[in-house]
């Protein structure tokens, strides 16, 4: 409940859409790929060092990790196709002989498939999130505030939790 409240707080706050979108995008990479992969350490470093919205990242991680279970067969197929492609064999062979890439476990079909997929959609997803957040703030927020459902929500415990959270995530 607190996480949902935080998200609403973030979405409706002055936090820049780019920072929220970036949080979702990093969550996309960390959530869709196997969690205990070397590249996720880099993602963690970037999430913490860059001013990325942490609530968006955590919520995204939760959502995309769940989604990964459904998409794993697709990632496996994609990864296997890439890893067994004759034209890429030289590249994979040289990477296979590197300790760093072996630690990354790039030669696993799901690691390869999910990583390639998440990196490929990273930028489009960032732009889409930005667009949706801006539109939400411009058009939907005012309308939502007036709806009966929102009125009921404002009277709920969730809203009180949301109210109690202040100054969360992103730059102040």
């Amino acid at each position, binding site marked *: 409940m607190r996480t949902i409240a935080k998200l609403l707080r973030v979405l409706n706050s002055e936090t820049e859409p780019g920072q929220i979108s970036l949080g979702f995008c990093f969550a996309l990479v960390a959530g869709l790929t*196997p969690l205990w992969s070397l590249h996720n*350490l880099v993602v*963690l*470093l970037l*999430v*913490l*060092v*860059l*001013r990325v919205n942490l609530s968006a990242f955590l919520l995204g991680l939760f959502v995309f990790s769940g989604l990964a279970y459904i998409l*794993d067969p697709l*990632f*496996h197929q994609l*990864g*296997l196709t890439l*890893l*067994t492609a004759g034209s890429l*064999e030289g590249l*994979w*062979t040289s990477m*296979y*002989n590197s*300790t760093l890439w*072996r*630690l990354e*476990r790039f*030669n*696993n*079909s*799901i*690691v390869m*498939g999910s990583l390639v997929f998440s990196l490929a959609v990273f930028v489009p997803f960032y732009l889409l999130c930005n667009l949706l957040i801006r539109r939400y703030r411009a058009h939907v927020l005012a309308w939502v505030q007036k709806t009966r459902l929102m009125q009921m929500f404002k009277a709920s415990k969730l809203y009180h939790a949301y109210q109690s959270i202040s100054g969360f995530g992103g*730059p102040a």
Partner: protein
Amino acid sequence: MKKWIRWGGLAVFVLVVGLLLVFWFLFIDGIVERVIEDQGTQLVGAKVELDAADLSLIPAGLTLTGLQVTSPEEPMTNAVEIARMAMSLDGFNLLRRKVIVEELTAEGVRLGTPRDTSGAIKERVKDGEDESAGGRGISFTMPSFEIPDPKQILANEELETLKLINELKADVEGARETWDQRLKELPGKESFDKYEVRIEKLKGATKGGVAGALGGISEVESIKDDVQKDIAALKNAKVNFEEKLGTLKTRLDRVKKAPQADLRRLQEKYSLSPQGLANLSETLLGQVIGDWAQQGTAWYDRLKPVLDRAGQAGAKRGGPEVVKPLRAGGVDVRFREKDPLPDFLIRRTTVSLQLDAGDIAGNIENITPDQHILGKPLTFTFSGEKLKDLRSVSLRGVMNHVDPARPSDRVNLQAVGYRIQDFKISKQESWPVTVTKGLADLKVRAGVQGEALTANIRSNLNSLSISAGKQDESNRLTRALSSAISGVRDLDVEADVFGTLGDYDVRIRSGLDKVLQQAAGRLVKDLSAGLQKDLSAAISDKVDGPLKDLTQNFGGLQAINGDLAKRLTQGNDVLAGLLKQSVAPKALPKELPKELPGGFKLPF
């Protein structure tokens, strides 16, 4: 730029990584312990337990203490118990996800130690059921030394003779019914009498001038045709009948010989033939050697996955190779390495085996499931001297799976001065045999090439003391055999095991057969002859009546044959009479007119 950078985050990152490392240091030993127990249990099919695991990073190494591997067949016994096992690991290759153990030292290795609690796992019960259902291995059944009652034998056995008699009787009756019916349809006395009447009538009709004469010729030809047709039908029927009769007679001959075949079969089953006695040493020792072979092949089957991953993965050299990992999702794809190394390798293992008899030391080199990558076979050497009940023992072997398509495994075992005590050769109630004491030298050479198994076992047994039979034995034969085998002091035994891992046979040669034959051969012959005589009489009692009935039934068929012959004779007589006393020449005038009345011309 500052707007996008959160330097405090770096500190948090360091903290998170630090926490992960602390977690690793605190819990990795427990995790390793759990992984070894779980994976080991899965592999062995019975509980694998570990007291403690200690993983060190610098230098990379792992020490396991108190490892217990339950015997899957005996859940209250540990197949192996190892007090301490220390491994030095190749740290660099560990980063590349390759477990390369440079040296493994196993101390305090003991076999067959008792357990406090059962080491069975639920899944194993099902596996065990399957294995027993498979019934691999061989069994040797001791021949019965009892002389059975022939009447009792016949009460329990179905005689092939009676079965054949009943079948033939039914067929004979069926044939008789069929031919009785057919005889009714075939021309008989009545038909031939009618021809006689027609001939007589024709004789009267020849007095009618030329027209009468011509009509007579036509009628004669008609009767001749009819008689010839009837004779042909009878001849055809007779040929068919004789064929059928011939078949039935052949079967009758077989039935008459069937009692002898029944006698032979029952005698082989119920009596100890001199040939059976000749193979008695194989029966006695074969079970022991067969059990050893079965245990050996069972352990070999268990070790095979450790030796043979290449065959399972369908590896191809050169190009990428897809390997299914044991756990986790997806598949790992392997590529050619500059310096190829297997994923798992123990270069050298030093083992100190603590047996009740004393200590045996040895080493194993190149343990890996990927010999085709390493290019070296697994080798092992164990030896021990001045043991409690054994002067010396040595075990050497090579398990070569470098070429996965042509695996070749060899093992040589040599034991000198093994002291035998109360070793049960035969546990069968009819004739128990135990070597109470003795000394044995043993040489075993065994090999597996692909699925083909060969083994040669040579043993010299000396200073023997053998007890056999029961105290109050009344059976003359077992008394004679027991007396003979108890007197054996020295014995050479050679055994060959051959076949495939799933289906093998044991052949044994020893001086024991000669001893047993000399002692009991005459007795066995007499007993066997007695049983043959009694059994023959009992079979005759049971078979003679039905056989007599069957022979009588054949008499009915002979009567049909006689009837057919009689009809054929009658038909031939009618035809001969017709030809001999042909009415046509007498009826016709000596010279026929050129033209018939009415201007018709004769065709001749």
